[in-house]
């Protein structure tokens, strides 16, 4: 019976969308960019000094969206940690019974520095080439997973990760308040010098914000996976006993 309702709902929605709008969407590719997109392309270099227009929009022109986005990721990491309290005690050892053997063990140690290097590169060059804080942060986090899952290092102290995460978040908010306290009196304003196009240290606070975002994402996602594999409280118990870890 539920299948029938499902089909009915979908077909009616599809018909509704198709008749109303798809005719209007089934047109040739547009040849000109919309007004706001055009304004963004033109304003990128004068106002932000970044080469990557998408980064200029995401970090500076619509900086509050990115602050919201960081908050959403922070919320989901908090939520996962909150809800996975019960998995305690069954740490990585139980979830991944074997260590992945010789090849994975040494392979991970080999690949580790490369992954971190690429991740940091993507974060640092967010305003010049595609990518930025989020994909770069994720890459660095995958390096941490490689470490955790192939038995190179068993436990990750979530306490240190929480401190890093907190500092990175506070850095982002502080950068925003910096703009508020400056003469421009506007939150998240790009008050630092713009530098010359194409240089790593250009585009004012954009690289700094992306550095903060990258660190925060990397720290958050490592705690996220640690909580999911249940070693969050395992390491907490050890840190409780004099913090040998």
């Amino acid at each position: 019976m539920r299948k029938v309702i499902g089909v009915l709902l979908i077909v009616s929605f599809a018909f509704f969308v198709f008749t109303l709008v798809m005719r209007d969407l089934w047109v040739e590719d547009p040849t000109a960019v919309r007004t706001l997109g055009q304004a963004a392309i033109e304003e990128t270099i004068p106002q932000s000094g970044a080469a990557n227009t998408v980064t200029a929009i995401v970090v500076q022109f619509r900086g509050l969206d990115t602050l919201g986005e960081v908050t959403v990721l922070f919320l989901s990491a908090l939520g996962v940690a909150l809800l996975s309290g019960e998995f305690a005690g069954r740490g990585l050892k139980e979830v991944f019974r074997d260590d992945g053997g010789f090849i994975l063990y040494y392979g991970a140690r080999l690949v580790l520095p490369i992954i971190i290097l690429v991740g940091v590169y993507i974060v640092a060059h967010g305003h010049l080439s595609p990518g930025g804080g989020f994909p770069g942060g994720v890459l660095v986090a995958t390096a941490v997973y490689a470490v955790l899952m192939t038995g190179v290092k068993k436990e990750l102290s979530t306490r240190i990760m929480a401190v890093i995460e907190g500092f990175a978040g506070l850095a982002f908010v502080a950068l925003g308040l910096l703009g508020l306290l400056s003469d421009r009196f506007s939150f998240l304003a790009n008050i630092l010098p713009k530098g010359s196009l194409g240089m790593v240290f250009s585009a004012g606070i954009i690289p700094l914000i992306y550095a903060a975002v990258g660190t925060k994402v990397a720290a958050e996602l490592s705690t996220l996976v640690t909580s999911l594999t249940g070693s969050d409280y395992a390491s907490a118990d050890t840190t409780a006993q004099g913090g040998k870890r």
Partner: protein
Amino acid sequence: MISISAVLYSTSLILILLGLYGVLTRKNLIRVVISLDVVDLGVNIFLVTIGYVRDGRAPIYLADAQTSLADQASRMVDPLPQSLVLTAIVIGFGVTAVALTLLMRLYERKGTVMVSDLRGLKW
């Protein structure tokens, strides 16, 4: 000439419909979360396609390229929908991660993730 945006608008519509059908009819709740992800993918394609311009270039200025900045700018696609999708992807992941953790806990408590066994979830 094939209108790329028309093809991708239809693909995104089909993906959204597929995902919705999956959410409404699948019995295994992990499958419901997978269907939600498919809906998110469909919506993201729809958003980026709005910004597409015929044989447009990536909206990134090349400092040392031969062509002038103004010339590069004229052939760029619309960067705004792309910046919206960047946020949408991260939000989508956030929701998926929390949903899956909820399911793990439900499995801890009830030993099943089938919708038929869960009292409140029939619709």
